[in-house]
């Protein structure tokens, strides 16, 4: 501890903890009480600065904190008890780890003298979560408590962000503890690198200036780097005239309505973005990690390109794809350096070649790979894509945050809802956690009480955290749940159709609840659209109500998500939907190797 920091003895560890949280700017905690954390709840009761949102299940507390973090750029905070409280939080922690979301999760623990004794509600929380967090701590000495809290926030928000867990034995929370202010001294061993290497920037610009078929492939790292990074991405893409595609996680960093945007890439990406990735001669990956959902078959991925990979995490570079120019650093700093170096470089860009590349891309774009046909006759069944497009149109002009669950509806939302701003699209990308969307929407609505927050859901996913309807009611959070109800675990059904001979093993949503009545029983509004005639009215009603709503949108049960790059196939062997006459049947093009992939 350096001499300038102040130290004060607090009457309990719980009070020292809350003081440290306040010093870190914490405004809200998502949590659920239990025996081991009662001292913290007692301290929360006796103050008014930090708000506590009582969830109905600890997994939801973590997703809510993720929603809060992703929509604000701040660190989300979770508080759960020992044992089952901590183990229930694990799915959320891994979700945040995979998607690089900054969280601090506080878990109660049995008193230090009982640790290891199989005490009531004891679990080896730091052991269980060691691989589920960016870092974790067990506080065994009162003197360490506030330092650990400050450090946890620093670790969570810097470098590649992620969840950090602090396990707090009950005696540490009860006994008096000194409070230390955050120290200005750098961490002893953890010093993530943010400034890019100038030589690498020069190499990258030399490649980019000479590119004839360039593409920018942007990812969630640009969003994590803050609003300025998205601004700089836009500036760079406009400056260079390059086409830009995005991962699922990166949507919104570059405006989807801009003509230089090619749409999402990867397994369910657009024809033009995947073929641009396949055919490019120089690729600039900024803040993405060559995920298997993006690359398809690795040995056929973008075979003729020079690859530049900018990432804050050195372990993301050369992990799946070997690159020519690695750049380690913060996305905003890298983009700023690239823009400066691009402007300073006197080499003239080959504008004619770029124009030719764009002509090629426009031909691919003309294929309109997201096309579908919505019948308009009376009683016609709603196409899920149409429901999302109508929802998008109805929400334009309002500040709208979209969360999703996981499955077909998630992909249709990514394809058809156009995101023009970062931090407004929240989806479980890496882990693919069904049940993410409702609690994430809850956390987003807490952070943005006046905004429109919509969970685009499937009827199966929504049931995984449906208990959070109670939280919406308690805190009057007017979250809209827009269920694309096709009575199937749609993505499972789609894979069974394409890969398993249409044997729909256990993928039918049997015995569904009446979602309208379910909404009403949770003090929310329930609406239903059974055909295309009802859709716009239901959307309008949903948006007009200042209360939580479940809109049960009955959609075509047989609709599949296209385009689709089957597992194990390269980008240029994409399957297009039934709208496109030349559609090869998927099952034929899936190799045995592809079958084992997920």
């Amino acid at each position, binding site marked *: 501890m350096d001499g300038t920091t102040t130290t004060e003895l607090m009457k309990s560890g719980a009070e020292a903890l809350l003081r440290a949280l306040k010093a870190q700017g914490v405004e809200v905690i998502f949590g659920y009480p239990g025996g081991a954390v009662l001292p913290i709840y007692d301290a929360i009761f006796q103050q008014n600065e930090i708000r506590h949102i009582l969830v109905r299940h600890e997994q939801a507390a973590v997703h809510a904190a993720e929603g809060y973090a992703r929509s604000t750029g701040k660190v989300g905070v979770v508080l759960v008890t020992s044992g089952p409280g901590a183990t229930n939080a694990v799915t959320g922690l891994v979700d945040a780890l995979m998607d690089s979301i900054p969280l601090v999760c506080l878990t109660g623990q049995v008193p230090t003298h009982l640790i290891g004794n199989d005490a009531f509600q004891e679990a080896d929380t730091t052991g269980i979560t060691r*691989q589920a967090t960016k*870092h974790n701590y067990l506080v065994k000495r009162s003197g360490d408590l506030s330092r650990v809290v400050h450090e946890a926030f620093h670790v969570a928000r810097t470098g590649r962000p992620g969840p950090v867990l602090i396990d707090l034995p009950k005696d540490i929370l009860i006994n008096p503890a000194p409070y230390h202010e955050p120290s200005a001294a750098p961490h*002893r061993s953890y010093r993530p690198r943010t400034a890019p290497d100038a030589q690498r920037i020069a190499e990258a610009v030399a490649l980019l200036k000479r590119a004839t078929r360039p593409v920018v492939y942007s990812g969630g790292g640009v969003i994590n780097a803050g609003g300025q990074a998205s601004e700089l991405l836009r500036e760079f893409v406009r400056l260079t005239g390059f086409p830009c595609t995005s991962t699922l996680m990166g949507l919104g960093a570059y405006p989807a309505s801009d003509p230089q945007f090619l749409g999402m890439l990867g397994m369910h990406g657009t024809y033009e973005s995947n073929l641009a990735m396949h055919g490019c001669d120089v690729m600039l990956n900024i803040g993405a990690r060559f995920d298997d959902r993006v690359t398809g078959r690795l040995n056929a991925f973008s075979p003729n390109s020079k690859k530049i990979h900018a990432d804050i995490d050195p372990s993301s570079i050369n992990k799946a794809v070997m690159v020519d120019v690695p750049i380690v650093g913060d996305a905003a700093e890298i983009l700023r350096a690239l823009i400066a170096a691009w402007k300073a470089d006197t080499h003239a860009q080959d504008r004619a070649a770029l124009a030719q590349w764009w002509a090629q891309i426009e031909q691919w774009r003309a294929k309109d790979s997201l096309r579908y046909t919505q019948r308009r006759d009376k009683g016609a069944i709603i196409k899920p894509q149409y429901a999302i497009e109508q929802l998008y149109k109805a929400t334009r002009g309002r500040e709208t945050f979209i969360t999703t669950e996981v499955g077909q509806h998630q992909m249709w939302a990514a394809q058809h809802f156009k995101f023009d701003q970062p931090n407004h699209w929240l989806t479980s990308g890496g882990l693919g956690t069904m049940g993410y969307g409702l609690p994430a929407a809850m956390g987003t609505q807490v952070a943005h009480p006046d905004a429109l927050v919509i969970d685009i859901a499937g009827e199966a996913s929504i049931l995984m955290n449906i208990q959070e309807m109670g939280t919406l009611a308690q805190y009057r959070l007017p979250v809209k749940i827009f269920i694309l109800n096709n009575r199937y675990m749609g993505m499972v059904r789609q894979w069974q159709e394409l890969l398993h001979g249409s044997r729909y093993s256990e993928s039918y949503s049997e015995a569904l609840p009446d979602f309208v009545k379910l909404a009403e029983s949770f003090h929310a509004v329930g609406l239903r659209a059974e055909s295309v005639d009802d859709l716009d009215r239901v959307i309008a009603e949903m948006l007009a109500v200042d209360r939580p709503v479940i809109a049960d949108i009955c959609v075509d049960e047989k609709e599949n998500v296209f385009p689709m790059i089957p597992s194990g196939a390269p980008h240029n062997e994409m399957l297009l939907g039934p709208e496109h006459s030349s559609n090869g049947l998927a099952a034929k093009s899936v190799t045995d190797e592809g079958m084992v992939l997920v």
Partner: protein
Amino acid sequence: MSDTMMRSATISVLVENEAGVLARVIGLFSGRGYNIDSLTVAPVERDLSKSRITVVTTGTEMVIEQIKAQLDRLVPVYKVLDLTMEGPHLARELALIKVIGTGEARQEALRLADAFRARVIDASTESFIFEVTGATDKLDAFLDLMRPLGLAEVSRTGVAAIARGVKTIG
């Protein structure tokens, strides 16, 4: 280098000496499917604040680069050094070897131990315990020779390694 060619790497990791740090390193190897051929750990600072972990692993160049990057991003890790790539280094381990036997085999074991500079640190009328120090392959060779002569039990420390010359890990 070919992306399928395997190599051995001796990696030194300087870490904060705190609870769970070894579990983090081991968990990283098991969770990501990397090999551990040998692993040693002990505090190396006078105040016990830092420990040095030496891991010997095998993998393709790409995997070894991944291992180093993954180790480096663990919060309590100060420094990761690939001694195999950093130039000449020394690697040693120690083994305690119990050989049980009588007669000619016993005599032969003793003669070979002498040739390998193994010390006898315990003896009974039917057994020896040898202490032998050296590179992994020297220990392997000695053990191979002891096997037909009554090799009964082995305890090895795993590899400790350090770069030659003035270069240090700090």
